[in-house]
């Protein structure tokens, strides 16, 4: 994209990148512009950058819709993203219907915004029929939830001004698919904010134009939703780390701050290392943290340099943007700093430098790098015989832990998926109580391939998988031992 094409006077793009050392050069920044650091080779992030500017523009400008329209006219349509997989397919190809799990986003008026497979524009008619079904039910003051046809499920999530639909033959419980649609919806909010989305939709602008470049985040998120145990448990996985080291890190994070700083987070991939809340405000919800992790892991350019993006955290406040400073301190260790001020980039960059200094002074950096490499563990570490796998959620702080797959699950991809799907069913059953709205106390499931025992209390949920040949007695014993092991390891498994 040639950024010089943009002539809107409210937007001045100021990002100049020194590719050699990835430093930011300070330029004159006016009130409306955002600072962003891009890898020029990555056309995707350029797209993203462009939409960020729009977002910023929406917040700051009183006649924002007018501005956007001018702006949109100038977007160089030819600046294509790399072609997506299956983008040549649409509902006229029989193969298109063969995909196991479709996701669609359309506006409440039926305009296509996103399709996981195929080009959403070519799917115009198909999407219109999706829209017709849900709007018919809406016209009767009701809301469409899901249809069942043979092994297919059609799950609808209607959140004005968006409709999200999943068509799946994966056999996942509809409640789980609904949760996945909720995640996708929050991702859209995080790019646009709910208020902007409504304003844009009601002004009859095409939301798709504002969401250009979001596809790769959506694709990545969908992929992640299909395998992430911590999302399944509505929780956050923590990096396994010595308690003292973690405390030191937390101290450093709380020590180095500036006025506008709301939260400091240190993450490694999709694991949380530490988080600090600097102001009296609501804490971050796990869904928001997962969205952040999704952004970080689906954008290669974040690894190269400091970045500064506006982002809305839907569960924190869906009406405005926060400003997020992103920087990888070490390979696999990423610092996220949230500010409510659009121009505090340099203060936050200073914070980062102090944090790095702090980490090095206390010799924690090495420990941290080691922990990143040693996080993964298998069930053998617990020394509990015949334990195949487990999931544990600490309900007081919504942190979770689980081992990586070991045999028999690690051998075939299919087996991993099967166990994941099984957990999806079991978590749904355990939490399906309609009346008390509380999970069942015990749940024990046996099939030909495994036995899963579940116990829940006010403080935790534990799902443990054993061979189906184990006796109940030995499972019961192992289960108690596993609980003990987790209790003993709590200090390093979870942020205390």
């Amino acid at each position, binding site marked *: 994209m040639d950024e010089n094409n943009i002539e809107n006077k409210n937007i001045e793009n100021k990002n100049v990148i020194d590719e050699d050392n990835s430093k930011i050069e300070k330029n004159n920044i006016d009130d409306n512009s955002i600072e962003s650091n891009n890898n020029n080779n990555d056309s995707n992030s350029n797209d993203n950058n462009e939409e960020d500017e729009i977002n910023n523009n929406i917040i700051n400008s009183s006649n924002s819709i007018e501005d956007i329209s001018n702006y949109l006219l100038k977007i160089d349509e030819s600046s294509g993203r790399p072609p997506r997989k299956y983008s040549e397919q649409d509902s006229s190809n029989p193969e298109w219907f063969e995909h196991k799990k479709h996701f669609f986003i359309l506006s409440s008026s039926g305009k296509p915004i996103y399709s996981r497979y195929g080009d959403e524009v070519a799917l115009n008619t198909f999407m219109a029929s999706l829209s017709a079904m849900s709007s018919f039910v809406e016209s009767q*003051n009701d*809301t469409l939830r899901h249809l*069942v046809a043979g092994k297919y499920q059609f799950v609808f999530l209607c959140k004005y001004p968006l409709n999200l639909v999943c068509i799946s033959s994966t056999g996942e419980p509809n409640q789980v698919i609904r949760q996945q649609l909720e995640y996708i919806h929050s991702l859209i909010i995080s790019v646009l904010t709910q208020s902007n989305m409504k304003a844009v939709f009601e002004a009859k602008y095409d939301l798709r134009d504002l969401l250009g470049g979001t596809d790769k985040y959506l694709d990545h998120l969908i992929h992640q939703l299909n395998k992430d145990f911590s999302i399944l448990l509505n929780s956050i996985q923590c990096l396994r780390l010595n308690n003292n080291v973690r405390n030191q890190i937390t101290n450093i994070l709380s020590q180095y701050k500036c006025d506008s700083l709301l939260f400091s987070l240190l993450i490694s991939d999709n694991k949380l290392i530490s988080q600090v809340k600097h102001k009296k405000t609501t804490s971050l919800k796990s869904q928001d943290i997962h969205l952040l992790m999704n952004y970080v892991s689906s954008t290669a350019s974040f690894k190269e340099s400091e970045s500064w993006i506006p982002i809305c955290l839907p569960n924190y406040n869906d009406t405005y943007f926060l400003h997020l400073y992103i920087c990888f301190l070490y390979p696999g260790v990423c610092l996220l700093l949230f500010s409510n001020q659009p121009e505090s980039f340099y203060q936050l960059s200073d914070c980062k430098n102090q944090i790095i200094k702090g980490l090095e002074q206390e010799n924690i950096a090495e420990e941290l790098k080691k922990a990143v490499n040693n996080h993964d563990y298998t069930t053998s570490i617990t020394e509990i015989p015949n334990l195949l796998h487990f999931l544990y959620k600490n309900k007081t702080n919504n942190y979770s832990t689980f081992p990586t797959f070991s045999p028999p699950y690690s051998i075939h991809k299919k087996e991993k998926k099967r166990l994941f799907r099984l957990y999806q069913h079991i978590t749904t059953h355990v939490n399906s109580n309609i009346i008390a709205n509380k999970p069942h*106390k015990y749940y*024990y*499931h*046996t099939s030909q391939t495994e036995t899963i025992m579940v116990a829940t209390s006010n403080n935790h949920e534990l799902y443990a998988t054993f061979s189906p040949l184990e006796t109940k007695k030995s499972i019961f014993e192992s289960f108690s031992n596993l609980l003990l092991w987790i209790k003993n390891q709590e200090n390093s498994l979870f942020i205390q």
Partner: protein
Amino acid sequence: MSISKSSLNYWVIYSSKLGQKEGTEHEKVLFFYPQTIGIGEQTNAVGISEAYVLFSKQFSPEQPCEIIHTQKSTLSLYNPEEDIWMVLSVNNPAIGTAGKDGKGREYIEDEINDIALKKCVQQIYQVWNTFNGGINSMISKGSTYEMVRKRLDSFIKPYLQQIQFDQLDLFSSLDGIKFLPVNKNIYLTIFNYINSVDLNFQNSLASFRFGIVLYKDHLILSSLEQNETRTLYNYLVNMVKVGQDPSSSQTMMVLNNSNNEPTWYTKGQRRTGFINMPDSNSKQHLPLVWLTDDKPQVMIIYEQKDTFLLFLIDPSDLPQLEFDELAQSLVQNFEFVNPTLESHYNKRAIFDEQYKYIYFNQMNLAIKSPIKPRGPDLNKETMKLLNEIHEEFENGSSSEIIVKTQHDRWIVAKKIDFREFYIMFDNKNSSILEINEEVKNATNKFFKFLFID
């Protein structure tokens, strides 16, 4: 807080072949209930159902849309005959009353179970089909759609009105048959009696044949195919309510009216004799039944002190059947076995007093349970849980499930080959191992009882 239970929203039967021209869509509707709903909305209901089917066929051509969940209702679609569709829409249960803004009412969206709802629709069709034959075959035999509409209205409406839509539980999903366990001697004696009656009458009337025999609500013997047995058993036990005190529950029985159309009547007080023939001169009131083959047969039900015998005969042979003679031979035989059957029936209770369980065998459709459907042992939580476990068993994804609920009820469910066994305990302080011991004890006793008795 006011709670509204699940209830019928609407029920429609339509033919997708009719009303193809724009503006004539309302002609598709063959039956709609409640009739207070205007023709416009009826047509809408048909339209949206056709849209669901058409849309879902793109992905699942063999099995188009069967179930639709919305916030306020749950729908089941059924396509029993070519072009004939049935749609049942049930209001989800809800808590609170809606204010002017429509808020303040919370719908419980996952209480209605898909399998139970599908079963309910299938049963409605089955009852219709048993007493009327298929809709398409009525048309092909010269009935007009107007006649079909009239017949549907008079036949389906009363049936629909008595269904309790908040009670679609595991019993409705399993749709099983209770068998009376009798010892070999009694079994052979009854078998002999029935054979001799069969032979005796078949000499002169070749089409005469024995169907099933029940003691109260338990089946003793059937000469019909499994599905035919299930349909007629279901009719006798759940509609005619044989063996139950007729004053305590509403009975419904099909007789032919003076126009020779099947019509619902209430069964009168307990009596001995042909219960679906008011007097011996009213053979024309005996209803026809369509079982597996397309040839209707006359259904004759005889009651002798809690024993119910069902016979079938070709309509052309009916005039020659001597009912007095039939009655006489039955009285003779069954006066003798009735006391033994009664003692067998009462013996069941010993195990049943100790345990709350449901046993179901898919192979012979046998169901055993001391739990009364709609009784206090089946609260909403348990009902939902049992439905869910059954669904897991149906999917083949599990062979044993043990749950301890928030209310400290243990439910243990096992599936072994074609058998499903559910048992409930209310021992608050037991561990899963103690419960496992309890289950072992119970199953030992149970299977001894089941096979040796």
